């Protein structure tokens, strides 16, 4: 069940009413109802995935429960090993088995050895990377004594399976979320209104901006040899904003939906494309994942408290793993590698420029680096990515014109003009929100302007957002 579907539009009000009108008297019943709703939500894709979700939840709850009762370091390490092995092996099997089998086979073939590994047709469970990491962070935090393990299975199951953030994050931390499940929730009008606003804005970003940019990006990436120079660059830019709007739109809907049930999720994006440095970019992009890797990979490796070469090595491991987390393809690894490479350069040349011109020049440079990295993220193969970059850089006047690109994508140039106006509106909104939160910006608007903007968003969503077959959320693939 995706957020921008009729099924979800029917599901959400029913769950909302059940949650606040039928089960509100008892927090345990509310959580149990959330579990049922979340399992229904997740099972909508494929009921078989529920077994995996339940397995992960039960193993990690058991490990946390056991860690609570164990002071023996060996025993605690063993329990940590159990959770790491169970979570990572599940992830490895479903996501990476065929990738590694194929890679080893190719490597052996390159060395002149023949290897016949069996590759299995494995269905990738939606959201496995997200809830596995979320559950794993819980057991690691309990092991590190950052929190006590949960003694309540219902609360824990609700925490892992909470449907607004189950399939594409934000990857929540137990110290932040579990207490919210443990306490009695009271309906808060302002929180609910902010939730609805966030959902509306998320739908606008996904259905209007991202899905229409996807048409342009797909046109260029799927016909890399046809579009060159500026046309190709436009395709790259289109994907840059598509992935941002798609993912941040999803996060907005997730945050807004969670608020309807009295929960606060962490912000996942803070205007990342306005970042001056790549370091700053990673503090603003997919915050829940980058902080996860920081806390559970980078810092345990030594973090910043080591020599510069060691720090750069730590960054390398972190970003290669981060790339791999996104998908079982070398292009994702290279994407992570590119980010590491430029982060390493920043490590060696620290300090952001102080002048206005310098800061903005650096901002543009960072944006360009991020865009270039996205080429590898989007391309299906390394060769395709290199071909895209080559055509963009070396044949500025070759290939089909921009006009031809827009007509091929949107059928008429007028559609492109209208969409460009909508896109500019979006950019203005994002500019306004670069230093303040969405809630603050909207709260400060005059009532008439705010209500008019709701209607404008609805009209835009209806006119531009409904397609015969809309692209799925990009991060569902991870």
């Amino acid at each position, binding site marked *: 069940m995706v957020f921008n579907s009729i099924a979800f539009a029917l599901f959400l009000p029913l769950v909302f009413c059940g949650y*606040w009108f039928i089960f509100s008297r008892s927090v345990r019943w509310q959580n149990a109802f959330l579990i049922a709703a979340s399992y229904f939500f997740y099972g909508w894709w494929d009921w078989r995935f529920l077994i995996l979700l339940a397995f992960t939840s039960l193993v990690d709850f058991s490990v946390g429960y056991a860690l609570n009762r164990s002071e023996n370091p060996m025993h605690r390490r063993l329990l940590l090993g159990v959770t790491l092995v169970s979570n990572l092996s599940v992830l490895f099997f479903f996501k990476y088995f065929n990738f590694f089998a194929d890679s080893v086979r190719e490597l052996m073939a390159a060395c002149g050895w023949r290897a016949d590994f069996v590759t299995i047709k494995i269905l990738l469970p939606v959201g496995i990377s997200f809830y596995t990491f979320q559950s794993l962070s819980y057991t690691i935090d309990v092991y590190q004594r950052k929190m006590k393990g949960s003694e309540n299975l219902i609360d824990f199951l609700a925490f892992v399976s909470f449907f607004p953030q189950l399939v594409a994050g934000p990857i929540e931390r137990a110290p932040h979320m579990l207490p919210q499940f443990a306490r009695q929730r009271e309906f808060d*009008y302002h929180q609910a209104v902010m939730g609805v606003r966030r959902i509306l804005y998320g739908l606008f970003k996904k259905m209007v901006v991202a899905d229409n940019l996807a048409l342009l990006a797909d046109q260029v990436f799927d016909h890399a040899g046809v579009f060159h120079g500026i046309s190709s660059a436009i395709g790259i830019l289109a994907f840059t904003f598509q992935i941002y709007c798609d993912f941040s739109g999803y996060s907005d809907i997730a945050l807004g939906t969670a608020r309807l049930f009295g929960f606060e999720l962490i912000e996942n994006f803070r205007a990342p494309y306005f970042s001056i440095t790549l370091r700053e970019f990673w503090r603003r992009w997919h915050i829940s994942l980058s902080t996860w890797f920081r806390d559970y990979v980078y810092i345990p490796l030594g973090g910043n408290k080591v020599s510069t070469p060691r720090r750069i090595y730590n960054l390398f491991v972190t970003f290669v793993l981060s790339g791999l987390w996104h998908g079982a393809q070398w292009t994702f690894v290279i994407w992570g590698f590119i980010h590491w490479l430029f982060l390493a350069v920043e490590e060696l040349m620290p300090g952001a420029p102080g002048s206005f011109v310098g800061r903005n020049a650096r901002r543009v440079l960072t944006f360009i680096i991020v865009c270039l990295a996205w080429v590898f993220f989007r391309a299906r193969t390394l060769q395709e990515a290199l071909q895209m970059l080559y055509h963009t850089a070396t044949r500025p006047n070759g290939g089909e014109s921009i006009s031809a690109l827009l007509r091929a994508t949107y059928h*008429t140039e007028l559609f492109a003009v*209208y969409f460009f106006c909508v896109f500019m509106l979006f950019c203005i909104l994002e500019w306004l929100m670069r230093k303040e939160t969405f809630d603050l910006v909207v709260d400060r608007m005059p009532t008439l302007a705010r209500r008019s903007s*709701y209607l404008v968003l609805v*009209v835009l969503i209806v*006119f531009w957002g409904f397609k*015969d077959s809309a692209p799925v959320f990009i991060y569902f693939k991870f």
Partner: protein
Amino acid sequence: MRRFLIKTFVFVAVASLVPAAILLWPVSKRYQYAFVRNDCAARSNYIYHRLYEDTTRVDIAFIGTSHTMCGVSDSIVNSVLKQEGIHARVANLAICRVGRNMDYVVIKDLLKTKKQPKLIVLEVKQEEPDLSHPDFGYRAEIEDVFFPQSAVDVQYFKDLAAAFNVRLNYVRDGITGRECDGEYEAPSLGIYRQKGIADSTVLYQGALRRWERYYNQPRAAWLDSLMLRYPKAYMSEIMKMAREVHTKVVLLYIPNYGYPWHKPRELAYYRGLADVYLMPDSFYDNKGNWIEDEHLNADGAAILSDSVAHYIARQLR
């Protein structure tokens, strides 16, 4: 909570005006017929052209599914009728896929153009199709989508979504200056009316598949009766529309290959509405008449067209 619910209700009500306005937006027939760009697109454009652009009259209209598309040659029917001394313009307005409500839409459009057909030859199969035609929502008038002829419409929302989709695209294309695709072209019948003969295995497997799916496991009688209310409501409406303009309706039986009883299951019902024309059993059993288990080949179409033309001649005298 009360304040939140009231405000949400008001917001949803106001927001619903937008899709509601789109649903009620008048859309051109041209656009509706050209909208669905599937393998039936050329056929759909042809029907539009024949009804709305070709001003020649339609004296005899064949309405139905791809069974009629493949099984009836309007030129053969024309020439046989001429030999019989009847000068009539024949139009095969059958369209792919199955759904009695689509027959209703085409006949309604035909009668609206005031081509005044003398005779409508309406296809019937071994089973009366009890679901909505997949393209109904796109081509029907909005009132026909909102208020189907029967409350037993399991695909009501699907049709409503299709109606919304075509109108939304119509408005969007109007705003963005996108021209309506679907220039008239002679209908491509693809594999149809080809001279080939079906492979026996294909015929057998098709018949077997249908047998296992439908005949071997019949539905409960009450469910059958309930589901059939839907297409029968459209049949009644078709008969009523035809009566109002004094157009005669006859029913032509064109089944799939391999149906063992050689007559429609609802024969008694059909005979209560109109004459039912059945070919001899040997025609349906002759593998040489089929290109595959669903459709007649050119030879089969020639035999059927010739036979039904003589039948029509008798009807018109």
